C-alpha cells in the first residue's frame, strides 16, 4: 500500500474515525488493527514478523527492568538486540545467499531469492532497540500493556519511510486522552497533501526526466549529466521528505506529533550540520544509541572517538 494511494486514504479515514469513536482505553486496539491491516496488505508474513518482534521486545524489556543494574539485565539486552539485528540482517540479506552458494547443495536456500523484505522492519527494529536500551539505562519504564507497546511500534504512518520514533515519546502521547481537534485534522491533511505533491508531482516528475539519462548515460555530453545529478538530489529529497510529510500529517490527524525528519538540509553550512538536518530521526538514533555509548565507553583510548565515529557511519 503506497502512502499516496486510495487504499491508504481509506485506511486513514476509517482508522482515524474509529480512533476517536472508540472508548479512550481501546485506542491502542484501533492503532494495532490499522498497523496490521497496513502490513497485511503488503504480505501476511510482514504481520507475523512485526508481531513476533514486538512480543520478543515486550517480554525482554519487562525482564530487563526486573533485573535492572545486574549482569542478567545486560545479558538480556545483548541477547535481544542480537535477535533484533539478526532478524533485520537476515531478512535483508538472505535473498542474496543463493547467488553466493549453489542452492543445489543447500536446498534450504531454494526460494530465498524471492523472499520479500517485511515492510517496515528497519524502522520498527530500530525503535525496538531504542526502547530496550532506554529501559536498560533506567531512563524509561518498561510498558506493561503489550497492546499499547504494539500500537507504538505498528503505528502505520511511520512503517513506510519512518520517522524512527522513540516508543516512549509515542506512548506518552497515547496516554493523553485527547479529543478530535479540527485544527489538527486540517493541519494534518494539509501536510499529507504537501507530501503527496512533493512525492508525485516533484519527485516522480523529475524521475521521468532523469531516468533515461541514468539508464543510458554513456555517450551523453557532460552538461545533461551534471543537470541529471543535480536533479537527482532534488528528486531524492522530495521523495523521502514527501513520504515523511505524509507520515507526520497522518499522525497529526490522530493528534500525535512525530519526530520531524528534515530541517532544510541543503541550507547546512557544514557536513556535520547537514547530518543534523537530513533524516534527523536516524542520525539522532545513531548518535544516542551507537555513537554516545561507544565514545563514552572508549573515552580513554587514543582513537576511541574516531573509532566510535567510524562505527556509527558504518551503521548509518
Amino acid at each position: 500500500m503506497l502512502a499516496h494511494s486510495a487504499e491508504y486514504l481509506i485506511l486513514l479515514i476509517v482508522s482515524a474515525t474509529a480512533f476517536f469513536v472508540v472508548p479512550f482505553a481501546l485506542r491502542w486496539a484501533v492503532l494495532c488493527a490499522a498497523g496490521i491491516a497496513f502490513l497485511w496488505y503488503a504480505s501476511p508474513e510482514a504481520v507475523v514478523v512485526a508481531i513476533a518482534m514486538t512480543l520478543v521486545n515486550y517480554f525482554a524489556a519487562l525482564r530487563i527492568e526486573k533485573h535492572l543494574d545486574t549482569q542478567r539485565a545486560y545479558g538480556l539486552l545483548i541477547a535481544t538486540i542480537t535477535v533484533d539485528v539478526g532478524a533485520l540482517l537476515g531478512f535483508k540479506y538472505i535473498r542474496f545467499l543463493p547467488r553466493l552458494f549453489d542452492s543445489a547443495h543447500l536446498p534450504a536456500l531454494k526460494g530465498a531469492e524471492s523472499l520479500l523484505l517485511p515492510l517496515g522492519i528497519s524502522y520498527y527494529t530500530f525503535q525496538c532497540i531504542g526502547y530496550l536500551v532506554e529501559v536498560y539505562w533506567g531512563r524509561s519504564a518498561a510498558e506493561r500493556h503489550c497492546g499499547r507497546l504494539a500500537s507504538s511500534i505498528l503505528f502505520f504512518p511511520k512503517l513506510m519511510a519512518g520517522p524512527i520514533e522513540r516508543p516512549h515519546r509515542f506512548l506518552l502521547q497515547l496516554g493523553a486522552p485527547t479529543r478530535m481537534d479540527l485544527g489538527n485534522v486540517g493541519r494534518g491533511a494539509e501536510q499529507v497533501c504537501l507530501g503527496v505533491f512533493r512525492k508525485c508531482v516533484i519527485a516522480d516528475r523529475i524521475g521521468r526526466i532523469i531516468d533515461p539519462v541514468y539508464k543510458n548515460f554513456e555517450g551523453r555530453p557532460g552538461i545533461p549529466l551534471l543537470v541529471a545529478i543535480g536533479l537527482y538530489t532534488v528528486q531524492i529529497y522530495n521523495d523521502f521528505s514527501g513520504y515523511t510529510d505524509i507520515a507526520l500529517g497522518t499522525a497529526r490527524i490522530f493528534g500525535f506529533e512525530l519526530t520531524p525528519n528534515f530541517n532544510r538540509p541543503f541550507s547546512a553550512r557544514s557536513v556535520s550540520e547537514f547530518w543534523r538536518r537530513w533524516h534527523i530521526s536516524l542520525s539522532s538514533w545513531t548518535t544516542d544509541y551507537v555513537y554516545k555509548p561507544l565514545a563514552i565507553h572508549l573515552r580513554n583510548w587514543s582513537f576511541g572517538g574516531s573509532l566510535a565515529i567510524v562505527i556509527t557511519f558504518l551503521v548509518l
Partner: protein
Amino acid sequence: MSKTPAEILLEVNVVFCEVLATPDVVLTDSTTANDVEGWDSLNHVRLIAAVEERFGVKFMLKEVMRFANVGDMCRLIYTKLGS
C-alpha cells in the same frame, strides 16, 4: 574537607568553559546540552572525560547515560567524592 554541591557545580562550570573554550558558559542544576552552545555529542564525551579528571572520579556508562541535566552529574560527583 569534602566539597559542597554548590562548589562542585562551580568547578564543573570552570571545566565546561575550558573544554568549550568560552567564558560565557553559566551552568545551573537544570542546564542541559540544549542550553549550551557547542555542547554537542562530540564535546559531550570530552566534557565527561575532563570532569572525571578534574574530580578524580570515574563514571560508568550507565551513570552517564542517566544524566538528565548538569545537576544529576554534580549529585553523582558529590556522592562519589563522599564515598
